[in-house]
């Protein structure tokens, strides 16, 4: 088991390196520093997860290895998302996520992904590799988040996250307190979206509205400001499942 965890960590590190277009072995050694163990690399090679190229200086994923690394990173970043957004953990979400990534099954990963509304980025802003669930992009009824653009006029929700690659947009929204955790109320959708957030009315483009994902708030509209959005049943049971692994 310990070995498996170590191997997972190496695969994860290699995925990060791949994202940065640098898969040299030296870089991997550097990343683990004193903890680096050559035998783990060897095992990865033996299990046909990676190969060494160009005089053994460059590491490369095999198809099998890449799929596995992708799954691990996906689990890690989704777990971060879950701890960060849903559980409001700010300090230890990284550590927590590292533990989950080795234990989550494919099925569980996909259901977390679905519950979170198929997020595209982890809290650090790194891309979450899409899974089957995202590719199908099924907006199932049981998912407890929805896009702002799918809300009814007058409905309120708590922002789960905002998928945006545009820094300027993020800065602006953040300054207006349109950010994860804030309660947002939809006032108007045409000719532009108008939302109310922390006492301010803000007009935004439809494109931005599509990028905002919101937790449904249960109960009547009028006390939306008072009640904390309760965890939905599904979310609760899923959480128990994860915690009681």
């Amino acid at each position, binding site marked *: 088991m310990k070995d498996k965890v170590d191997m997972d960590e190496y695969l994860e590190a290699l995925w990060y390196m791949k994202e940065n277009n640098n898969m040299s072995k030296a870089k991997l050694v550097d990343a683990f520093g004193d903890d680096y163990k050559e035998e783990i690399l060897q095992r990865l090679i033996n299990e046909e997860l990676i190969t060494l190229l160009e005089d053994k200086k460059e590491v490369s994923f095999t198809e099998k290895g890449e799929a596995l690394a992708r799954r691990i990173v996906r689990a890690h970043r989704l777990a971060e998302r879950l701890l960060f957004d849903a559980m409001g953990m700010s300090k230890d979400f990284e550590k927590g996520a590292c533990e989950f990534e080795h234990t989550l099954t494919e099925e569980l990963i996909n259901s977390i992904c679905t519950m979170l509304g198929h997020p595209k980025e982890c809290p*650090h802003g790194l891309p979450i590799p899409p899974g089957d669930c995202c590719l199908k992009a099924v907006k199932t009824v049981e998912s407890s988040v929805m896009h702002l653009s799918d809300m009814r006029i007058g409905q309120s929700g708590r922002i789960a996250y905002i998928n945006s690659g545009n820094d*300027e947009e993020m800065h602006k929204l953040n300054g207006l307190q349109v950010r994860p955790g804030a309660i947002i109320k939809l006032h108007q959708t045409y*000719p532009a979206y108008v939302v109310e957030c922390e*006492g*301010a009315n803000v*007009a935004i483009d439809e494109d931005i509205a599509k990028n905002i994902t919101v937790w449904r708030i249960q109960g009547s509209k009028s006390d939306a400001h008072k009640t904390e959005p309760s965890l939905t049943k599904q979310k609760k049971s899923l959480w128990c499942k994860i915690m009681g692994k």
Partner: protein
Amino acid sequence: MKQTDKTDKNVLILGLPNCGKSQIFSNLTGEYTLVANYPLSTINIKGAFCTVEGYCYNIIDTPGIYSLHIQSEEASMVREKILSGDVDIIVQCVDANHLKQSLSLTAELTQLSIPLVLVLNALDETARKGIWIDSKKLSYIVGVPVVESIAIKGVGTNRLKQAIETARLPKSPVIFGDVMESALSSIISFFPDSMRHRRANAIFTLLNDQYIEEHIEKIAGAKTLQDIKDTIADLKNRFQWNPAKLLSYTYSRWVDSVYDEIVKKQASAPQSFSENLAKYCRTPITGFPILIGIIIAVFFLVVEVADALTGFLEDLAWKPVEDYIKTVVIDRFWNDLLIGDYGVLSMGVAGAILTVLPILSVFYILYNILEDVGYIPNLTVLSKRIFSKIGLSGATILPMVLGFGCKTMATLTTKTLASKKERYIAIFLIAFAIPCAPQIGLSMSLLGKIGISAFFISFAILVLVEIITGLILNRIIKEDRTQVFIQMLPPIRMPNIKNIAKKTYYRLLEFLKEAFPVFILASLVLFTLDKTGILDALKVFLEPMVKGALGLPVDIVDALIVLLARREASVAIIAKMIEANMLDYVQSIVAVTLTTMFFPCVANVGSIIRMLGLRSAIVIVVVITISSVIVMTVANWCLRLVF
């Protein structure tokens, strides 16, 4: 004023757009400045003095900003001012209605090493909503004086003056997580000791801020900058993080915790009447009828009230003067100079005061009410689709809508547009066919003489011109950077009578101060041209264009000449022509619409030069002047087919 041995302290008023900064500036200094219920009403830094117990403070009003990180031009202007080192005290105006948004800026201000005062403004409105904010606790948490204020009523001004004297550095900057903090210390270690605001600069650097990078390069050299960049790249690589997200996350947490501590009571406010009203103004199905209703109401008020005023003033003040001069000044030349067709008194003085001033007064009162109510920004939502049809992104809407107030100011607000292409198009469209507030008032009054339908036809021509021009420019100019539309809408407020009276007074005063001499000068120029025969020669020369193409009587040349000096001056001439039945229905429309577009006003040209440079400005002016004649020639033919 007794100067102390200390040098004057610079006090910067800072805050979100539309939070009341200018009102507070006015209260402190007694200096008038535009206060209006929409964002971007202040677009330049402006200073004035205020003395407190012998000390002299230079109070500085600034354009609104949401964050020190936003990279738009007016925000960078404010930030440069702060980082330049000659700001001694910052007064942050905190809009109590938008507490969290404002606190987010406060969090950033704690990173600077400048003494701070917080002004908790618009407490009248939060009180009405049932929200109570514990200012003592806020003062304790941040560690700086907090002043409760209702700026619009002058409440809190004296206490603010005292607080400025006791301004203090915040207790502690908002602290980030370990990784970020150690990154900051390693960046700071590269900075020279003499550098100001090292912590804040380190934060900016971490966020790839271009302006700051240039700044660092200037004071520390290119090598240090490269070293810093390498360090950051290395850190990012090692920890796989995104500093921007962690930063905003930390600030958000801080804001939430402060907010929870200081907001004591929050009754859930019922959907208020004003909010519903705003919604109706923004939704097309109700919004367009409301807009048209407002235009019609303003139209009749301007036409009826201004006409009555003019008639009253003429009988009371002008007729006796004219009669008196007729009997006393017998000499033909002097008589003409004073009260002839181009007389200094008849055209210059009477034109400005009797014809134009009543129209402007009535119109400004109505416009200022709309401005204070907060109606105008809602038009950005209402007209959103029209702009996207032209291909302009949402960000351009507010500057263009503000063009209906004052084209010069609106041109300057295009600073907020990051896309060069959209900036150019917006400036061009503002200069071309958007009638500014006085122009609308004057056209209403002129076309009111022949009926409201004429006004709407003229307006429709202008809208059509804008759309077509927008489409053409959008085709010609290449650049595909689009901008996002994120626009805070101000609350609908009851207009404040004192504020409106003051604003109207200052706007009229400004008109008289600027326009009066120009009116007299224009009449002198026309008088000279007339007496020397140049005017007649010019009219003969221009006759084919004026009569043939535009279908106007050749005397309209008078109006076009004075228009070069001051647009309002042409109104008196056209008004006279309409009254004398020299212009029929179509001719009136053509004349008024032409004068709305023909040659942008001098102040507007000045602002275009500031934004785009002299060459572009010349091109724009020439193109607009020629196009306006062509457009009105076509319009003339079309209208002739119908009427």
